[in-house]
């Protein structure tokens, strides 16, 4: 579904990605794990069109994305749950959710999807008229995921959904990620520093270090890899 080939991205003259390749197949959860500054967010933002690549190709359903503006990429069916949640604190919960469906015109289907999101996250319905900035971190993460779902994406990109959340909330979020993939068939590319959690829900994974993919394989293989155990799983 998504193919990234030899992607090179620079910030000024500094290379952030030095030619990474990865693939996400339909109905898969694929994780990209790595430390701070390894290039995880850069990868996602380049796929989303916020950052322009220096060279290489990003293909989504065989269509080249490289030079499309970000809003065209959303239209093709790629939604991102951004780093640090990226909810709009100055807007209400329901306004945030509606923005997720910004490009959709099917009003009645949007209202149905809103109900469906409220079913997955009942907390959001209780707080629908509250400003998003007044929600707790976990609730904001739920809102960010719900908002991405409102676009009915074919592929969801998630940037560190566990960041800054209490362990119990992290578990809840990952339970939902698994549920979305299993029950709804949502394809997900997940970025995480929390390798343990990420590998527990993913089918396959890639490990990125200073802009290069160093290991890849199925989640089982990665969990059994000694280097990864030492560097990322703390075992």
């Amino acid at each position: 579904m998504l193919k990234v080939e030899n992607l090179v991205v620079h910030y000024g003259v500094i290379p952030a990605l030095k030619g990474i390749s990865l693939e996400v197949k339909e109905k898969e959860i694929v994780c990209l794990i790595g430390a701070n500054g390894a290039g995880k967010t850069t990868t996602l933002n380049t796929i989303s069109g916020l950052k322009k690549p220096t060279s290489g190709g990003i293909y989504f359903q065989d269509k080249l994305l490289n030079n499309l503006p970000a809003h065209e990429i959303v239209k093709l069916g790629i939604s991102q749950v951004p780093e640090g949640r990226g909810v709009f604190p100055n807007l209400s919960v329901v306004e945030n959710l509606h923005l997720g469906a910004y490009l959709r015109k099917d009003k009645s289907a949007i209202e149905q999807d809103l109900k469906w999101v409220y079913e997955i996250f009942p907390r959001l319905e209780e707080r629908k008229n509250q400003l998003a900035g007044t929600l707790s971190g976990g609730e904001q993460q739920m809102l960010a995921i719900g908002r991405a779902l409102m676009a009915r994406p074919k592929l969801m990109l998630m940037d560190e959904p566990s960041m800054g959340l209490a362990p119990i909330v992290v578990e809840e979020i990952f339970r939902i990620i698994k549920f979305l993939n299993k029950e709804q068939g949502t394809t997900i590319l997940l970025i995480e520093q929390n390798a343990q959690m990420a590998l527990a829900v993913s089918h396959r994974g890639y490990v990125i270090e200073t802009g290069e993919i160093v290991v890849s394989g199925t989640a089982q293989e990665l969990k059994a890899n000694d280097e990864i155990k030492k560097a990322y799983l703390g075992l």
Partner: protein
Amino acid sequence: MFTQQIINGLTMGSIYALIALGYTMVYGILRIVNFAHGDIFMMGTFFGLLLTQKFRFPFPLALILAAIFTALLGMLVERVAYRALRLSDRLVLLISALGVSIFLSNFAQLVWGTETHPFPSGLSVKSFQVGTVTLSNIQVYILILSCLLMIALHVFVHKTKMGVAMRATSHSINNARLMGINTDSIISMTFAVGSILAAVAGILVGIYYDAVYPTMGYTAGLKAFTAAVLGGIGNIPGAMLGGVVLGVVESLGAAYISSGYRDAFAFGIMIIVLIFRPSGLLGKKQQEKV
């Protein structure tokens, strides 16, 4: 006299508020002070003058057309002077804004001359007495029209899809793009809306004082910018409140203390407010959860 000065202050204050909204909306989205805004206001006034005087359009039609032309001018300024520089240092944008400002006021001097033009709107000025207060019909138009425009703006920003997209963009351009919002067109539209408000304000003030001149954008722009800062720059109700407060303080100061210090009162109130509330009357410190 007190009520009279309040009314006069409210009249000028609502003009300041209309102009201040353009400063504050652009600041809210791009975090730049559009120093060309005062000159856009001046150009809007000249457009209005041209349409009523040269082309003999009836006043309401001239007002609407002038607002449209000014909106296009505002969008052009954004396209030419700001868009390519959006990722550069704020200082570069500031210089570009000043450049546009100088260009526009000189352009107006070249085309329309440096003298002050009267503004024959076709509206006959009538004054009437309410108790001890003298009101002119122009003042009433200014108050009513600016109230209507501010209500319309409020509805637009809070109840329409585009308005919500605008508020989202003002919080984070990148996150707005991730929603599928074409932020370039939202920014363009923000300039258009601000310019429309400025054009209406300019034409109203042109009629009120019966004077239009190429440097009129300078003082009015500076006062309106002060009003925006006073209310909390980036905050829409703040700009409205700031404009009205500025107008009233200025008018009371001029009446009771000395009219020579009119501008000193305007800028003085800003300094006092900023000492005690650095983010302005309605400006809030944004809190973010990590």
